[in-house]
């Protein structure tokens, strides 16, 4: 799966639009779980909305292309996001607040029937209910939930029901937008196990897992992408990004997570000054430069290039600098290593 150059913005009543997603490019292989992490307002939920065409009316898609396996590439700008025929059976959304994501006045079974019916007009209600019931059982839920209304289930159950419904038609990729943020820890675990099982059984083949919980990602994601101010600033395997992040923002993000790991002892833990930029008027050059501890002059007026392939890169001038000097990829780490070494 390839996502290329997605740009989307929110129209505002007065003034410039909010450029929530400003040039996102991603790759996702079969069987992979890609985590997208970033602080609030970095654009990750907007990205999810773009890919699942579920955003509010003032969300406009300026550009973007989506390619999945051997299907025709979709021009996201022209079709206003993923086309309806794809939604649910090729690309599906697992939303954040499952508490209200189900129609409150419809039985779960009826709603599941509507989802199936939207893509397969010929399927009869009984078959659809059997399909849904079977799925529920398979994934650890009693099939009698189909007779219930959403308000009769607990929050954790509702989230899992929503997960089952989102994957009923075996979509190729599931976009999970902060699915665990509203759950208690045991419900979180149940949900993750369910997602694992779905991958194992081949019901879904890729997951984009959006969250701000880095610790969670380090346990379930194969690769991690760090998002800041509407752009992906770094992406790589989980291990690489967590152990040796190359972008200063990723460094700060990861550094702010406390790990009870002896290897981490002696490492400097520092926070960042300032706050995330106003997306109506983002800073010129590298968007992170006003807060970057390693800022150079070039960062303030030139956008850092993407040097490496789409599945493993970091957009920072230091990466280019290091590459020019013939060093291995290590980006800004070299500087920090030197500073640590030089400290008294």
């Amino acid at each position, binding site marked *: 799966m390839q996502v290329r150059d997605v740009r989307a913005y929110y129209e505002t009543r*007065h*003034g410039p639009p909010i450029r929530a997603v400003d040039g996102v490019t991603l790759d996702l292989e079969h069987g992979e779980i890609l985590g997208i992490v970033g602080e609030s307002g970095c654009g990750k939920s907007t990205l999810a909305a773009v890919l699942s065409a579920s955003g509010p009316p003032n969300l406009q898609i*300026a550009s973007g292309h989506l390619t999945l396996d051997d299907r025709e590439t979709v021009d996201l700008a022209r079709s206003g996001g993923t086309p309806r025929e794809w939604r649910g059976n090729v690309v599906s959304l697992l939303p954040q607040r499952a508490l209200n994501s189900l129609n409150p006045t419809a039985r779960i079974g009826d709603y599941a029937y509507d989802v199936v019916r939207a893509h397969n007009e010929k399927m009869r209600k009984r078959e659809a209910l059997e399909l849904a019931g079977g799925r529920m059982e398979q994934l650890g839920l009693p099939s009698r939930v189909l007779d219930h209304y959403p308000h009769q289930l607990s929050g954790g159950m509702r989230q899992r029901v929503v997960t089952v419904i989102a994957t009923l038609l075996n979509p190729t990729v599931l976009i999970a937008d902060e699915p665990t943020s509203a759950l208690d820890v045991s419900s979180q675990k149940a949900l993750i196990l369910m997602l694992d099982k779905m991958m194992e059984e081949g019901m879904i083949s890729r997951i984009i897992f959006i969250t701000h919980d880095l610790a969670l990602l380090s346990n379930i994601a194969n690769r991690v992408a760090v998002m800041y101010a509407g752009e992906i600033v770094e992406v790589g395997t989980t291990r690489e990004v967590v152990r040796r992040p190359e972008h200063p923002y990723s460094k700060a993000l990861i550094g702010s997570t406390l790990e009870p790991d002896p290897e981490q002892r002696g490492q400097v833990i520092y926070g960042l000054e300032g706050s995330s930029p106003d997306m109506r008027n983002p800073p010129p050059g590298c968007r992170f430069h006003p807060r970057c501890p390693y800022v150079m002059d070039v960062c303030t007026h030139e956008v850092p290039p993407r040097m490496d392939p789409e599945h493993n890169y970091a957009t920072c001038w230091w990466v280019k600098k290091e590459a020019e000097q013939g060093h291995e990829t290590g980006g800004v780490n070299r500087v920090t290593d030197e500073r640590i070494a030089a400290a008294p």
Partner: protein
Amino acid sequence: MSTVFPSAAPDAALDPDAKSSILGRLHRLATQFSPRFWFALALTLAVLFFGFVGPYLTGVEDPDQIVGGLYMDPSADAWLGTDNFGQDVFTQLIYGTRTSLIIGIIAGLVATFIGVVIGISAGFYGGIVEEALMGVTNVVITIPSIVVLILLSIAIDSRSIFAIAIIIGITSWPWTARAVRAQASSVRTREHVDLARLTGANTFSLMVFEVLPYMLSYIVMAFVLQLTSSILQEAALSMLGLGPSDSISLGVMLFWALLWESIRTGAWWAFVPPAIFLTLIAFALLLLQSSLDEVFNPRLRES
């Protein structure tokens, strides 16, 4: 990159170099609230001016003075002609507006007061008290107030402005009670209330000093609504012939107009102006009430 997005003009309000002149500040204040709010406020103030300052500007003491023949056309002497008694319609309009406003304000205050007391008590105490009070409220809401007003108007021996205002007030408070209770229920659970209770404050001071201040915006908006409905209720009552027996109000003007065939004789000046004024008042107040939301909730403002 920026060729993809619509061009972004820098927002002047964020420009630190903009002069903070009086004009500039006024402009910012003016644009902070929506045009709808300013329009509603202007209209309301105009009506209030007409009703309360008008009587002094006309120089006429008694609106019931006979100035001419019956149902005379508007002329330079009588801007809106005369009514079925030969009284000057324009003067009647001014005094009528005043009466309607006075009744509305008094009734509104009474209804708001009752509603607030009941609502805060219900929301604050909860439990059985709340159930009982809300039960009463629900019963009062379902019985249509117009019929209760009719019955009450017949029963009282003098239909003065004050009496009419009181009976309107005591039949229209349920709405406010409901709204206030909902809000009080939620304020009651806030921490500062617990804190005050822990420091030994008694129930009364808890209600007045801890809960009430957070409800002021709701109470003001409720008052505006009560005001509107009271003015219209009085007009309805008057049109049925049960209005104030000693003064002229907009509703009373309509009553006389209906009774004396002004419509059929084409004397539009006798009934169209009061009807328009009633509509105007209702429209202005309702518009004001709906835009008061943004005055109290700065997050809803435009900039």
